[in-house]
Each structure stands twice: as structure tokens, then as C-alpha cells.
């Protein structure tokens, strides 16, 4: 029952990170081979050379000084410190998305991945992105812990309920790459798989135009929610309003002083918490009168609201579509159907 006889040793490399991880692995492999062979050769040589020659023979006791112990403690220690530093450097680089990254969103649930593009296109289990673009993927889960893993990018990031985690990558080779859920999440865990389809910018533009119905950007949807949920009645947006809550102009990414002392950085996590559990951290000078929106907004709506709030610092109030990437509005080119990937996946909206 062979599905195919292939014997791969290394996965594809599709990002600069992948190449650096492979280099690090190659060095570790060389170090490991050296020490494993050293031990193996020593054992075999000693086994043969010092084999027991008559039944009553006993071993000699060596009189070696402490230098031997020092050498084999210090040498591994220095190798490990060097590798630690290299690994930590890459980890830090991978931790924070470089400036200019285009923001995508993902929601994991048993057992599918839901993706949202900056222009509001939505996909399930497959994510199409243009080659060479730096993608920052902000993720949350609707139920249990999942993990977003793409071996070709040498990346993995857990996706937790009730919190946001992010991962970034800049694929430099077009292709279709495995997407796995790497954190056990229940019965169909091994079917929570999909692909990351890296396309040339032209193909991507064509795909956006011809593929799923391009919706509104998350920020635009968020702006509508801001109206329909009547957030504006308290967090006033224009002059002359009687505000009952702090203004949200430019709040994202800034320190907010809190009632009772202290301050908090208004990041995604804080904005999310303030929508779901408003009384948790109240802004200095305001009363904890805001009702909770727990159970009233979905994870995807939360993402939209936060995307909207993030535009407030830079765009005029109520601005929409602030983060549309280039190419979104370009007309479909002639080869749309031909350049469609083999498995675009089901889409919504």
C-alpha cells in the first residue's frame, strides 16, 4: 500500500529563516556526529584493547589529574554557550515582525484554520500570499490550543484561546507548503491541515480578484461594528460629544495610565480584554461603567474591531480600508484561471 516511494531527508526551504535554521542544524549535526563517533570509537578501542584476558584480572586504577575532567566539562559548555547565543538571536529576530509587515489574521478552531486577508478576503485551511511579502499573522483560537506550523518556513507558534499570538514570515520561493496543526487538539487533529500557497505578485493579484469575493477589509468591518455595537456613544469620535469613556484616537501602541496607578501598553491583548472584561483594567479618570461584550462578539469580530482601532492613530476617524495592500484593486489579468493554484480551498463570504 505504497502511496509513493520517496525518501526525503530535508524539507523544502522557503524563507531566509528556514536557511538559517538549517545552517544551525547542520552545525549541531556536525558537533553531534563528532562527539558520538568519538565516544563510539573510544568504547570500541578500549573494549578490544583492554578486554579481559583471564578470569581473575582486575582493572588498573589511573592516576589522572583533574585536567581531564576540566576539559570535558568546559569544552561542551563553550560549544553550548555559542549555540545558545546563535539560537537566541534567531529567536529574538523571529519574535518581532519587521516594520512594513502586512497583517493577516487567523482563527483556529476544531478542526480548521480560518484566515483573513488585509482586504477582507477569507479562506479556510489555505492561505494564499504573494512571494517576497513580509506577512505578520496574528492568531487566536475559538476553543482549545492549536499550533500553526509550516515546516518549509521552519516555524511554529501555538494558537491560544483567549489571547493573541503572532508569527511572521517572508517566503522567497513560490510553491505550496504544508500547514500543520502541531498542538494536539482532539479527534481530528491530524486533519487540521492545509497549505500556504506562495504566489508571484501577479498571480496573487489575479487570485484576489478572481478567487473569493473580496470583502471589506477587517478595519472596515470593524468600523461598522463600532457603529452597530454603539461603541461610539461612549468613546466619542467627534467634537461636541459628551464622552462617557476615553477617546480611542491613537490609543493602539501607547501606554495608558490606569485607575489605581500603573499603566498598560494598549496592544491587541489589552484591547481584547477591555472589550470582553472592561472592568479588568480601567483607564485613569473613568468609571467602570462599560458592559461586557463577552459572548456578544465572535473572535473574528474582535479581530475586526481591533483592526479598526489600530487605524485610528494614523487615519482619520471612521476611516476604512486603510490597510489595503497594493494590487488589491487591479483588474483581473488574462491568465486568471490558469494561474489559480491547484487547491485554493473553500472560501466564505
Amino acid at each position: 500500500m505504497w502511496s509513493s516511494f520517496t525518501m526525503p531527508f530535508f524539507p523544502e526551504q522557503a524563507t531566509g529563516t528556514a536557511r538559517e535554521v538549517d545552517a544551525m542544524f547542520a552545525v549541531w549535526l556536525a558537533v553531534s556526529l563528532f562527539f558520538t563517533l568519538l565516544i563510539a570509537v573510544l568504547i570500541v578501542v578500549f573494549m578490544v584493547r583492554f578486554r579481559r584476558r583471564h578470569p581473575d584480572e582486575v582493572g588498573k586504577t589511573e592516576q589522572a589529574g583533574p585536567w581531564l575532567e576540566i576539559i570535558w566539562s568546559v569544552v561542551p559548555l563553550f560549544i553550548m554557550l555559542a549555540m545558545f547565543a546563535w539560537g537566541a538571536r534567531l529567536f529574538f529576530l523571529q519574535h518581532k515582525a519587521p516594520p512594513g509587515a502586512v497583517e493577516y489574521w487567523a482563527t483556529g478552531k476544531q478542526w480548521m484554520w480560518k484566515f483573513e486577508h488585509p482586504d477582507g478576503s477569507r479562506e479556510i485551511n489555505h492561505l494564499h500570499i504573494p512571494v517576497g511579502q513580509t506577512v505578520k499573522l496574528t492568531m487566536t483560537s475559538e476553543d482549545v490550543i492549536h499550533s500553526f506550523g509550516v515546516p518549509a518556513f521552519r516555524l511554529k507558534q501555538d494558537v491560544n484561546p483567549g489571547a493573541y499570538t503572532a508569527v511572521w514570515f517572508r517566503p522567497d520561493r513560490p510553491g505550496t507548503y504544508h500547514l500543520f496543526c502541531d498542538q494536539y487538539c482532539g479527534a481530528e487533529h491530524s486533519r487540521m491541515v492545509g497549505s500556504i500557497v506562495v504566489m508571484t505578485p501577479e498571480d496573487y493579484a489575479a487570485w484576489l480578484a478572481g478567487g473569493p469575493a473580496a470583502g471589506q477589509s477587517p478595519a472596515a468591518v470593524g468600523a461598522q461594528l463600532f457603529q452597530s455595537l454603539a461603541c461610539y456613544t461612549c468613546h466619542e469620535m467627534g467634537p461636541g460629544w459628551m464622552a462617557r469613556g476615553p477617546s480611542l484616537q491613537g490609543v493602539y501602541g501607547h501606554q495608558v495610565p490606569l485607575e489605581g496607578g500603573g499603566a498598560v501598553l494598549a496592544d491587541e491583548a489589552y484591547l481584547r480584554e477591555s472589550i470582553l472584561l472592561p472592568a479588568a483594567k480601567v483607564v485613569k479618570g473613568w468609571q467602570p461603567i462599560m458592559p461586557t461584550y463577552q459572548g456578544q462578539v465572535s473572535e473574528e469580530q474582535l479581530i475586526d474591531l481591533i483592526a479598526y482601532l489600530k487605524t485610528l492613530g494614523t487615519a482619520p476617524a471612521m476611516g476604512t480600508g486603510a490597510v489595503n495592500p497594493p494590487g488589491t484593486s487591479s483588474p483581473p489579468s488574462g491568465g486568471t484561471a490558469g494561474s489559480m493554484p491547484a487547491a485554493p480551498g473553500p472560501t466564505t463570504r
Partner: protein
Amino acid sequence: MNSTQAPTAGIALDRPSYLHDGYGWKSWLLTKDHKRIAILYLISITVFFALGGIFAMLIRLELLTPEGDLVQAATYNRLFTMHGVIMVFFFLVPSIPATLGNFLIPLMIGAKDLAFPRINLLSWYIYVLGGGFTLWALIHGGVDTGWTFYTPFSTHYSNGYVVSTAIGVFIAGFSSILTGLNFVVTVHRMRAPGMTWFRLPLFVWSHYATSLIMILGTPVIAVTLMMVAVERTLNLGLFDPRLGGDPILFQHLFWFYSHPAVYIMVLPGMGVISELIAAFTRKRVFGYTVVAFSSIGIAVLGFLVWGHHLFVTGESVYAATVFSLLSMLVAVPSAIKVFNWTATLYEGSVSYDTPMLYALGFIGLFTIGGLTGVMIATLGLDLHLHDTYFIIAHFHYVMVGGTIMAYMGGLHYWWPKMTGKLYPVFASRLSALLIFVGFNLTFFPQFVLGYLGMPRRYWEYPPEYQVWNVLSTAGASVLGVGYVLPLCYLLYSMVYGKQAGANPWGAKGLEWETTSPPPTYNFDYPVVVDEEAYEYAPDARAAARQEAHIA
């Protein structure tokens, strides 16, 4: 070793061995003899090992093809969960301490028994009760959370028997705590006159370190599993974010025990290897004091590295950095041990007896397990390798290639002492070889699979991974034969084996001075120790003394 009276080995004595001191079932089930309790443990952990092994075979058979075709996904999830729970909590944790440790620690320090014989028996009953709870859950449909019980899956989404399994593990934890407590008090209070700390066999040192972890770590897993049960039954918001809990908190608590638990599993194995290397080179272990203190070092550092299980959960990068560094530091004492064992062979009198084959196999496999361990402690690399088959391969190299090799080696070394009988030489060497080859064939392909990206706990997988999975399954069948063979010839030897005599290996150590099998109270004469550990060569004496003084 010199004693006030000459050892009485070989002389027919007017007292039965511990095996013949009573025959009824009561004489076993109500025994207070540490040696009989060790045998009770040996039988029960063998049952659990067989059960866990059957689950492993079913897992490997399912993975023979990329499609999920042998069992359903829900069944597969139960198989790997029960494999993990049984192997970790009911085989590996008690394996060496509760059998070999129980049997040998009093013998090695010249004591009549452990400090608390009744508590020792109680710990076996608690273990059986915990195992019973877990088996009950298994028979009623099993549990599908993975042995790690990650929240909020385990508290709200799993439809398996999470609470009864958790109670089973919770109960078995007390058995572990009591065994650890018994060992610590025994080593402090029961040593024979002249048996100073630096004359203790390294086996005792490593069990002392293990006992510290058992006492300090196990209560944390008990509390953690209790919290899971409380959230699952009473809907208390501890870990579920919808109720205001934090799912990552569970992972911190779980690994605060479960990482040190790795050292509960492997430190006793290191103790066994030190004994085997000394006995089969007839030489003092190179750097005795360094090896002794490296056990304590591993036990202490082992408590400070749990965060390396959380590198990709979203824990703070600074925490991850510290945990990565500490994880690498804990590898240093392990490396020291490997180098010291290898150096012990130099100018030794190396024999190729079966236990030594296991010991040499251990050194090779543990080296690979340790080196791949520091690879995945490297932050940048763990981003790729976390939660893949690379992790599976790594910890099986440590747990199976390390602990079980040591356990098998120890069992073959002390079997003549425990039963008074010798086993067939050829069959036992063959089994050591089969286990070594089968093990590598099973788990080495999993390193490749892991680097390719195959996630753990997958019931179906992309077809390009099939070749490596087929190799792994083929290896597992060889490994299975390697484990069944000793069961056959060891049982055979109990009836048909030749008499072993007190010291068939010509080894040093108090346990080899009494008869095989030993009498109920171990020694027929008051034990007084006046020489260093592993004093095979008379001229070694001065050197060993000197080292003991420096320490």
C-alpha cells in the same frame, strides 16, 4: 570487603533465603521485606510495560500507511494517550527505583531493610490502587488527552475518562513520594558502620538524587491534576479562558513536575550504568566524586528548566532565553558522566557479559538522546522541531535507549542475586543485540521524520513521509522480539538455571558478599565497611582515599 566476620558465601546455612521464607500468598502480600516488595513491583511494572508495549505496537501498525485505516482517529488518540500515561507513570517512574532500588539499597549500604518497611509495602499498594483506577478508565473507554492533559482540551473538550485517569496518576504519585522518602531516610540513617557518604556505590547516590526530586516534584503534579479534575467537574475557572482562567498556567505547573520527572526516570539508570561499568571493567569508576555530584547537580538544575516545553506557547522571550540557557547547562553534568564512564574502560579489565552489552548500548544511545536534547533546547531550532517526531525520537532515546537499557542491564546484572540462578548466555546476548538494533531502527527514522516536519500525535500523515514510518514500524517489531525474549529465558532460568553462587561476576559491593538469593535480613553477620567503593585493585586504595579526602 572486609567485615568483622568472614563472609559466609557458599556455606550451607540454617536459614532460608528470602524467597523461601514462607510460601503462602499472605507471606508475599503482607511482607515487609524490601526484597519481596521489589519482586511485587517487578511483576506489576512488567504487566504495565507489556500493556504499554501493546499500545505502542498498535500505534506503529496504524502509522504503517499514511491513511488512517487500522483504527479510528478517536481510538488512535486513546492508544497514544494510554501508551504515554502507562509507560511514564506506571512503568518508567517506578521502574528502576521501585524494583532494583528497593532490592539493592539496603544490601548496598549493609542494612537489614529500608527505614520504613511498612511504608514500603504501603507504597506498593498505593501504586496498585492508582494503576487500578487508570485501568478502570481504560476499560471504560480510555482517555484521549495525550499524557500531558493539556487544558482547556482536557477540562472541557475531551470526552474521555479524564478525571479517573487523573485520579489514578494522582494516587500513584503518593507511592512515588513514599518510596523517595523511604530512600532518603534509609541512606541517612541505615548505613553500616564505616559506610561513609563517599564510600556509597554510585547507584545509591543517584537514587538519593532521584528521591529528592520525587519528594519535591510529585506534589506539584498531584495539585495540578487535582485542578484539572476540579475545573472539569465543578466548572471552576482555573485554566479555561472563557471562565477567566489561563491555559498556559497548566503547562507551567505540569512541566514543573514532568520535566524533573525525566530525571526521576533517567538518574537511576545512570546509577545502574555506573555499577555495571565498574563491575565489568573491575575498576573504580573514573572520577567517582564528580559522577556522584553530577547526579545532585542534575537533580537541582532539573527543576529550573521546565520552561523549555513552552518556547512556542507565547511565553515571554526573556523567560525562554533563561530556560534555554539553563537547559543547556543541565547537559553538562550528563556529558561529564558519559565521558567518565568511557574513561573508566581505559586500562580496565573489560568483559563482554550481557549486562555490560546493555551498559555500552546505553552510553551510545544516551549520548544521541542527550545531544538531540541540547539541539531542541536551542531556541531558534526549537521553532522548527517543537511538537514534531524529532521530540518523540529524542525522548525515546533518553527514556527507552537510556532508562530501559539501564533497567534491562541492571536486571541481568542482579538477576543471579535476586533469584540465585544464572540465565542462558547466548540468548541474553542476542536479546541485548536485538534491542539495540531494533531500537535504532525504530527511533532513528523518527529524527528524520521530525526534521521533515511530521507533527506528533498524527493519525494520518502526508504520503511522502511513508518510507520512514515503514522503517520505524519494522524496527518496532524487532524491538518487540528483543523484549519478549528476556521474559522467556529469565522465567526459564528460575526453574532450570544453574546456581549462581554469591558473586558470579567477581564484582565488588556489599550485595555480592551475602548469599544469592540473600536471607530475609540480608546479612548473617554484622557488616562493617573499611574500604572504598569499587576497590578492585589494592593499589587503587591510596588513590581512592585521596579523592575521598579532597571531596
